[in-house]
């Protein structure tokens, strides 16, 4: 299966990334990480891309890391559909201090617009 992980904020996406890699090992998935241009990010896109590549440096599964410029939701949905991916993976770990699950604008857009199956990792 061809899987694309949409990565906005690195720290929030590590768990989703790890789970995707773990699955790829046993299922022989092909994994692409699409690094999204999240406007609230303090670091430029290129820095996040470098960080992801460093993180994946020791991983024994080959992973393509691609920066995606433009508004994150539409950019990811278009990339997933044009690249004929089988699955989009997004981290969905955000909660309020009280523990209420929160769905980001990016997640909502992808859920509503993606023709490709979406996996939310909690």
């Amino acid at each position, binding site marked *: 299966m061809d899987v694309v992980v949409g990565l906005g904020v690195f720290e929030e996406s590590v768990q989703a990334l790890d789970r995707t890699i773990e699955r790829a090992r046993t299922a022989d998935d092909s994994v692409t990480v699409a690094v999204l241009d999240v406007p609230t990010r303090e670091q430029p896109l290129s820095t996040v891309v470098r960080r992801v590549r460093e993180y994946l440096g020791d991983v024994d599964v080959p992973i393509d890391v691609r920066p995606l410029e433009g508004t994150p939701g539409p950019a990811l949905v278009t990339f997933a559909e044009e690249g004929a991916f089988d699955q989009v993976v997004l981290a969905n770990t955000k*909660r*309020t*201090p*009280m*523990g*209420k*699950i*929160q*769905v*980001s*604008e990016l997640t*909502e857009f992808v859920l509503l617009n993606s023709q490709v199956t979406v996996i939310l990792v909690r």
Partner: protein
Amino acid sequence: MTSNDRTADAESPPRFPRPPQSCTDREGRSIEIRAGFPRAALVSMYLDFDPESRAQGLPPATEDRIENWLDVLEEGINVVAWDVDPPADCWDDDDCAVGHACLLDCGDGTSELTIFVHQDYQLAGIGSRLIRTLLGAGQAGGIDHVWLTVERSNHVAMNLYRSVGFETTSAAGIEHEMETDI
């Protein structure tokens, strides 16, 4: 000076009732609302909670997750509604907690609010009493800014929050954010 010392005028939030409170709900049941954190009774209520009444993943569905979640809420200001004369088949043999509301200090001068009423006691006026009493306990505790998130489809809850002064501050996504000064 706490917020309740302000002189009343159109700009001031109301002074909410402090716990303990007693009332009769719309079904004629005697309800008491008290401050405190009765963990065992809360676990019983949440274990019996209807999955349909869950909101944004809360309350969690399993006992260990409920316990972990209550560890967080225990740090906040908690008020609990009790059925004074519960039915024999209540979910708890000892005390029958029927509603729970909490204000949790977020460490940034704001507090997050949450409220849950057991499905057998919903739409009976208890939530309204409970949230007012929680806000009263918050005023007594020096809290002056409260916010919450609510699913945009949960009109019952949104009307409840509006009735005590909450205004929507973010309506962009699946959840709306609402806040109020007390």
